[in-house]
């Protein structure tokens, strides 16, 4: 029996307690992803990595699966992933 599920979006803009809009993102390395609630919306990948105390040297930076740079802007619900260069053999 096949149980197909339709695609729905459940994420929404986060609001902090004082009414200032915020940004909720997932960030980390494979196996250790954290969800961060960030105040404001003008975050770059570099800012987020610094805030999350993640060392990025030697890692590829991907935002929602697309290669990114430190100055790439982060949007609400983004997924910021760091991983080592993949080598098949």
């Amino acid at each position, binding site marked *: 029996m096949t149980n197909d*599920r339709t695609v729905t979006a459940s994420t929404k803009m986060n609001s902090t307690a004082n009414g200032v809009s915020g940004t909720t993102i997932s960030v980390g390395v494979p196996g250790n992803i954290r969800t961060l609630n960030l105040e404001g919306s003008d975050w770059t990948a570099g800012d987020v990595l610094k805030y999350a*105390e993640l060392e990025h040297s030697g890692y590829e930076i991907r935002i929602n*699966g697309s290669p990114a740079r430190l100055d790439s802007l982060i949007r609400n619900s983004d997924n910021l992933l760091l991983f080592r260069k993949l080598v098949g*053999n």
Partner: protein
Amino acid sequence: MNVFALLSLGPVVLILLGLLDRRLRHYRFGPIWSSKPISRRLSIRHLTNQQKEILRSSGIEFEEPDAETILFNDKWSFVQAKLLLNGEVVDITGDADTGEAIMTFQHIKAVQNGFTTSFSPIDRAPLQDWVRNFNQRKIAKLVNYLLLPVVKKSIAIYYGEPGPRPNGDDQFSISLYSLSDWEERQRSSPHFSREIYDVTGRRLIAELEQDRLNLRICSTLYTLRACDLVDDLRRILNELSPSLILAQALKSVGFRFDPNLMEAAARGTDERLMIPSCLAKHILEPVVQRHVEVYNCAGNALSPVSYENMVHVFLYSSPVGTPRLNPPKQLWQTAITSDDPVFAPSGTGIPLAADNGFIFAEILDRNVYLHLNCVRLGTSEEIGMLARQFAEIANVMKDESQRDNRTVVSRMSERFAQQCASQYRAGGLADGKTNFATVETTFRSSLISAASAQSEYYQVKNSPDSELRGREFDQICALANVESVSVRDAWIVVTTANLYCLNPSSGVKYDIGKFEIQINAKEHTIRWLNQTRRVNGFHAPHVNGEGLACMGNTKELFPMLLKKQEYASVVQIAIAFVETVNVDDNWGSQITNWPRACKGQQ
């Protein structure tokens, strides 16, 4: 000879008698004018098993208070032993009741071959030179017989000036200082006292004593007074003796030292990791019933690994981040000498807190992360601290080994509550009253979150079709190149847009095709099926005709992520895997057989 001449000779004769008495005292164990020598018991250390056997077979009685020392019952036993072993007494230290004979034997002399002890040129006043020369002979003898056989390196002795900065494994140096030299040096260079280096890689000397600065190094020995050198050398030998240090550390946490385990730990282990590995063998392995591998991560974050039959202990590491927090002043009422920054808890594992609330370790499955750089110098105090941490970890792992999957969350919750209480107690003494309301609110909020997480956990566990939760599902849909996602029984199926792969050696981009990525959430497997084309039967440069990949460095990554249900990460890496090629690999070198991407394509 007149009376005046006799009177003037009197003091000289007395001085000579005094010197003679001092010289003979070592060998008679009492003043020369005493008809009954004092009953002093003497010990010798660092005898080989063969030498001990010779003594036993000759009927010489002695005790073995520890693994390194033998203690003779009377002085005649000592004299017989000295003759039997063809030993030479270098010096005798200790008090009136017990003393240690510092001896050299043929086997030690043999070790010294090829190594030298030298003094640096010095420029002192004639009288000091005379004293110095006398001491030089004694110092050289002590160093030759005591230190050199242990460090097995040439030793340079500097007097009144620091030796060159130790640069590695070639030479061991000793710097002798007068108090004024030392004070001057510290004034001119505030960090001088911290210029301490590890050459043998195992032992360093303990804390500086305020009233008597002697030494605290492994490669360079600083001492203020040459007369303290014997004590200093004895302390060095203690520090250089792994069995003694291990026995002390293990005893402090209720374990008994086993020399066989030390030998096992030494086999195939980096010398620097021998002591931690040995502690792990004594403390952790009996609990986890598996081999425990210890890694020195030196402040680098490392991802957890999952070799089924091993437990991995990462010293000074964490799954994520860098060490940035200030180290605690003490743990379990023992001072922390390292001022290296420490890791914050990653929040992904079971946290282990010390008595003051400091999270010193985390356990993730079979990975143990120690946040503190607790074996920086390798002193006996540090090894004791490491043993204590291992003992705490063993207690937790013992509990965890008895758990079943259904109780994992409640165990975590209990531990979280314990850590909260511990943290609160540690911080509450200072400003507990003022922060009480805040802490209560935070605690209530955390408890609600934990209860919610527990509920979610059981929901996910008990519902086979709900591996792909809402948020994770949304994240996959938002990924670049993902066109659709569906769940079919245990399978999560992702269809992608056309994927391209760049040949890193030529810079040419190749068109690989659209994919259906099939992820089995139960069996933790993954398949790539090219929906556009196959080349020589292959779905992608590193994916064979059955959709199975030669995983390379992702071999352990995918199962780990699937186990953790991090499906968004799985999909990202699965797509990146198709977009990457290793042209040094046989399969990867076939990339040139794939069609080139047209201009304007990705």
